[in-house]
Each structure stands twice: as structure tokens, then as C-alpha cells.
């Protein structure tokens, strides 16, 4: 079990390679169900996340390398992934890589109110630490990120958006 956990938790996200799947909260469960047989559950960050296949392949490779010859990767849709599952270590790794970590996710119960103004977030520039930042676009280089710019140091940066 320890061996399986160590191997699975070492796998990094294909699009955010500074983060492990465990830090991202995508790795939901690891279960050794028999001799050399492990079942892993992962939750997609977004419905169309194109990295799911790469994650599956990476998990299979690492677990086989750790001596498990039967590796099953299952998809867990419920509950839906939320940025609140990103661990403190994951948030620190994002910030260290120049990506602004997400704030608390909004409640997604009940009707979702319309927001016509840019989402108000307290985002600090991961480069210079300035709170003077502005949203460029709610959609970024991957489904999970928004684009920001710092009005102090003028550097653009990504922010992992709260869902």
C-alpha cells in the first residue's frame, strides 16, 4: 500500500508539471485490491480536460515501475473537482512557479448569480507580490486558468480560477 501510494503520488500533472496529481486533488483514491493489482481513482478538473489520458498513462507507468502489473484507473465524477482540493503544498508550488493559486471556491449550490463585472478577486502578482493586478481574461492557456497582469511590474501571469 505504501509502495502504491508513493508511486501514484509522485505522478505530476501534464499541464502543471510543478504539481503532483495528489497536490492538485485529482488523485482521489488508491486501493491495492490484490497481489500486484491496484485501483486508482481520478477526478477530471474540467469535463473536457484533455490531460486525462496522459494522467492515466503516467499513473500506469509509475505503478508498473513500482511492481504492480495490474493497474486500473477509474474516473470519479462525483463529487465534482473543486480548486479547494488543491493542497497547501500544491498552492506553494504554483506560486513558486509564477502561477497565482486560487482563492476559496464559490458555492455552487442553488442558482448561480449572474456577474456582469469582472470577478472580484484578491490576486497578488506571483512575480513581485504586488496586489495591484487586473484581469485580462477569465480564460487562459488551460481550462483551469485565467489571465492576469500586474500593474506594478507589468508582468502577465496565470491565475488558477476558483471552481
Amino acid at each position, binding site marked *: 500500500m505504501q509502495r502504491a501510494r508513493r508511486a501514484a503520488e509522485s505522478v505530476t500533472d501534464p499541464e502543471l508539471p510543478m504539481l503532483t496529481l495528489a497536490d492538485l486533488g485529482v488523485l482521489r483514491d488508491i486501493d491495492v485490491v490484490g497481489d500486484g493489482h491496484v485501483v486508482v481513482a481520478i477526478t*477530471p478538473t474540467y469535463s*473536457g480536460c484533455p490531460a486525462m489520458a496522459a494522467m492515466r498513462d503516467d499513473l500506469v507507468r509509475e505503478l508498473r515501475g513500482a511492481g504492480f502489473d495490474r493497474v486500473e*484507473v477509474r*474516473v470519479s465524477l462525483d463529487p465534482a473537482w473543486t480548486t479547494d482540493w488543491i493542497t497547501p503544498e500544491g498552492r506553494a508550488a504554483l506560486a513558486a512557479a509564477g502561477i497565482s493559486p486560487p482563492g476559496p471556491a464559490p458555492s455552487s449550490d442553488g442558482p448561480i448569480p449572474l456577474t456582469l463585472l469582472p470577478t472580484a478577486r484578491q490576486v497578488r502578482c506571483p512575480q513581485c507580490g504586488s496586489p495591484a493586478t487586473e484581469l485580462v481574461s477569465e480564460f487562459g492557456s488551460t*481550462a483551469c486558468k485565467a489571465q492576469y497582469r500586474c500593474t506594478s511590474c507589468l508582468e502577465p501571469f496565470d491565475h488558477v480560477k476558483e471552481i
Partner: protein
Amino acid sequence: MTEHIHTPAEDEHDNAYSGLLVNDAHWAFGTDFEDPLAGVDTTVPDDVDAATLGAYALMLGDDALVMSHRISEWTSNAPDLEDDIALSNIALDLLGQARLLLARAARADESLVPSLPEGSPAPPEDALAFFREAHELRNVRLAELVNGDFAEATVRVLLFSTWRLATFERLRSSRDHVLAAVAAKGVKELAYHRDYSARWFVTLALGTDESRRRLVAALEALWPLWPELFDTHPVEAEAAAAGVGVDPASVREAAEGVLDQVLAAAGVPRPDVPRRAGVLGRTGRDGMHGEPLSRMLAEMQSVARAHPRGLW
């Protein structure tokens, strides 16, 4: 013969060719993640008709599939890089929803899945996407129209996502675990789509005379297809009665309430144009579509149809 177990070399990530040496040939026109519902409880709830559930999931899946393809046509064509990325992301989210919903439809009712030539590795959701004719698709007609200008994309995404978000908010309590999970996920995505298009709607309305003219023209052109979104097809009525689906008529008030907020902020009145009639009363949900859908499918499906056993 010795069994070969692939063990990664230390420098595997540095070698661009290493992935090609693994024997993992897969269906050429989809992803190779075998089953998007692997490990998900797909049991049809007691006393729910599996054919109704399948037909209902297919409708929601086709809406997402067709809308996703239309929005994806904006990739590399949007007015600026940020909006190119935004529209591509919206298309990707919808494609993900389509994949799960088509897979759910296939799992509930296998008879929906077109039969493919022997040896085709296409998974059921891809068979549904690539091997059905236009009249077999159940999407609302709003999704299939030929793209116009950026104002048209803004209005179309706004109408579509406002309606779909209101639907998914209710679908979260579906008795079908898969639909409930897809909806819970989709709500978060659709909220971003709706708010993105709503902000652009207001921006274009309050921008220049030209941007406002184009926005109002787009709204008037699309408005005739708005009422169709709230028509109740018999399948939707049955799915709603069984507690697995949402009656579109029941979300009209919520969706129009949101849309009215956007129109008010933009200072744009509701268009006064009549709804587009069906053909002999039949609309998108009945498989009645315009010619543009056939053309779109021809482009989307032709390669997969030419190579139904395609592996790479």
C-alpha cells in the same frame, strides 16, 4: 516468449520519441481514455425507462456536441488572442460534456449506437458523434447555425449557456447519478461561459454605434430560435416525470430572468420578432434540422467515416 513489461527509462521525459515505442495503438479520431464512465455507477434507477433516459441524455449531449463544434470553428479566427482562447475553452468544456452525455446515452440504451464495420475500435460515444446522420441528431437548432460575426457568437453563447445553465442547475438533483454528476460539473463551467458572453454583450451594446448595430442584429437574428429551447419534447416530459430529467418549460422563468438582467444592463430591448416555426411542427429535438447541420457533419465526420477502423 518473454512478456515485455514497459519500464520507463530515467530520461523518458527527455525523449520525444519514447511514447511512440509503446504498443498502445488506439482509435484514431477520439481520445484513448477507454471509457469516460469507467468506475462510475451507471445503473439506471429503478422504475426509470432506460430508453427514455438514453434518449434524454442524447439530446443534452447533441446540444453540447454541435454547439462545441460551431464554437471551435472560432479557433484562430477570433478578434483577438484572449477571445480565441476563451471560445476554444468554451468549446472544449462543451465537448467534454458531450462525451460524457453520449457515453451515458449509449450505456443506458445500446440500441442508440450505430453499428460500425467489424473491427472498428471506436468507442460508443464516438460512434454516436461520427456515425449518425443529421436527422438522427436531437440538438436544438440554435446550436447548429452557421457562425456569423463576433457579436453573433456572443449572443449565441449567451442564449445557449443561460438556458443550459438554468437546466443544469436543476439537473444536479437528477435521480440518475451520471446526469447529476455531469450537471454538477457543468454548472461551474457554464457559469463562466454565460458570464463571459454576458459581459461582451454589455460591452458591445455600450461600445460604438457599429458594435451596437451588430449586436442588435445578431440578437434579432437568433431570437426566433429562443422559444424552441423551452419546448417540452415527449422524451423530456417523460424524463422529467421519472425524476431523471428537466422539463425545459420549467426553466424558462429562471433563464429569462437572467437574460433580462443582461438586456437591462445593455439597454437593449427584447426583440419583437416571431419564433421560427418547425417543419410540420417538428424542430431540432425531433431530428428536423437545417442544411447547415448536414454540411457541418460532413466536415466533422468525413475522415472518421472513411477510416472506421483507423488506428494510430
